[in-house]
């Protein structure tokens, strides 16, 4: 098993250091000059819509795809010249659970143990402990094809942990999972970092980056458009707000007068009121409308999502059409 000893030549504490990374497929620029630095023992999240280049970034960082330009050092080793050393230090869980459906959960883990050369009793102990840790012991003897999406992801991640990698790449680990399975994955990721593992996580969900990451970078059309802590990022995007739609212009006029700070849209007959947060503030807002005898036709509380982040940071809506 890898002991995770730090590289003596590299005195920095960067688990991942990327500079000037470029990658094109044909004439399509997928990554257009990416710079990243992920300190050891932290969770870094690469946030972006489908087609932003997240998976390509992961593939380059994990030695699966060769970059056209730029340098990438993972665990202190160059991914192109020192591929083997990089591979020995990392674990990767791809976008789709890469489990062998014909094998049972236990056999999948045993396969990884055999390939990582953790043989005999030690291998069997490791497999059993991973099954317990990921709450898969009851299903250990069933083929992975019978597993739910959440169980497959857990098995996939458990397989990645065989060999004790110090840097783990998770490519959209919760896409397609139900809320409860997402929470479970988040808890697992947090315990990994508590053990000193570095996590590089890609996601399309702002709340996931917010929940987990120490630092977040926003990827759009192959470029990083923002980087910082989740708090930094949230300061740059519009907060949550209440959206009110009125029956006519007169009501909209009155409401705009009595609700300072609101932004009106005469065409839609809507008013966006910044949300002070909490039920008391909401009651206050509704009471004010009531006092002036106006009622809204429609009412919605909107919290910022990735679309808002994109609009705020890039000035254009989240484009799903850019190729991976």
């Amino acid at each position: 098993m890898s002991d995770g000893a730090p590289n003596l030549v590299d005195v920095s504490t960067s688990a991942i250091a990327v500079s000037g990374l470029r990658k094109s497929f044909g004439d399509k620029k997928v990554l257009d000059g990416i710079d990243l630095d992920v300190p050891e023992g932290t969770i870094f999240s690469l946030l972006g819509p489908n087609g932003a280049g997240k998976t390509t970034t992961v593939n380059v960082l994990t030695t699966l795809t060769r970059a056209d330009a730029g340098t990438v050092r993972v665990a202190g080793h160059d991914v192109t010249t020192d591929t083997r050393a990089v591979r020995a230090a990392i674990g990767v869980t791809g976008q789709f659970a890469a489990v062998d459906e014909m094998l049972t959960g236990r056999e999948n883990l045993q396969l990884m143990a055999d390939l990582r050369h953790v043989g005999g009793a030690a291998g069997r102990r490791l497999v059993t402990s991973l099954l317990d840790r990921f709450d898969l012991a009851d299903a250990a003897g069933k083929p992975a094809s019978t597993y739910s999406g959440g169980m497959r992801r857990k098995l996939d991640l458990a397989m990645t942990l065989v060999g004790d990698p110090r840097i783990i790449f998770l490519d959209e680990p919760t896409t397609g999972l139900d809320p409860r399975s997402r929470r479970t994955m988040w808890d697992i990721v947090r315990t990994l970092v508590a053990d000193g593992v570095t996590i590089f996580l890609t996601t399309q969900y702002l709340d996931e980056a917010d929940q987990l990451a120490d630092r977040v970078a926003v990827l759009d059309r192959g470029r990083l458009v923002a980087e910082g802590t989740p708090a930094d990022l949230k300061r740059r995007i519009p907060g949550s707000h209440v959206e009110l739609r009125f029956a006519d212009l007169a009501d909209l006029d009155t409401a705009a007068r009595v609700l300072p700070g609101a932004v009106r849209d005469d065409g839609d007959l809507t008013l966006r009121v910044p949300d002070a947060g909490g039920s008391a503030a909401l009651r206050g807002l509704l009471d004010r409308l009531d006092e002036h005898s106006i009622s809204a036709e429609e009412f919605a509380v909107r919290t910022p999502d990735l679309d808002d982040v994109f609009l705020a940071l890039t000035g254009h809506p989240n484009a799903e059409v850019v190729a991976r």
Partner: protein
Amino acid sequence: MSADSMVLLRRNVKHTVRNPVAVFNAVLFPVVLMVMFVYVLGGAFSVGERYIDYATPGMILMGISYGLSATALSVNTDMTKGIINRLRVMDVSRGAVLTGHVVVTVLRSLLAIGAIVGVAFALGFRPAAGLVDWLGVAGLVLAVGIALSWLTVALGLAAKSAETAGMLTVPLVMLPFLSSAVVPAEKMGPGVRQFAEYQPFTPIIETLRGLLAGTPSTGTALAALAWCVGIGLVGYVWALTTFRRRA
């Protein structure tokens, strides 16, 4: 073979044991054909010898070709489901990953051929082959199996989806019908006849037929071996480059 190859071969053997349909298909179809031709269409074919003796070499080849689609599917699943990427990141050699598939394909086809030859004997197959001839049959079957397996592994790696992977092996299944497997090439219409005479399966089947009849011919045997080496090399190089390129 390396330790990793053995680990992955064990995995592929488990796949076959849990889904024996591939072996069953590879046995069933040639046997049904053989029974149909021997008993139903029977004397309608005049091939210059007893039909069972004529047909068995072709059926042996079909025992290989009918098992190939399962390999293409399983290689393609490994590729599209991310298993191959997982193994690449773990530094498992491409040789180990692909050899596991080739070896299990050859083992499966040997199983199918064993069953087909057994049924042929039960139906009255009486080859004149001596021990050396039988060794020649075994050697050629092995060479064809390995060559076609590498080609199939390449097809499975190159296919974008499981459906395509299955489709790509159809020509390999159809080719024996356009060879001298079921009827002699000289009985076919113009065009088809030339195709049948010059495609790889005909010299392979003729060599098997010669060996089983105890009258091997060096010329066709060399042609058969040359095809095996050619198909095998193309498949091997194609598989290795595709493995490296596709992520």
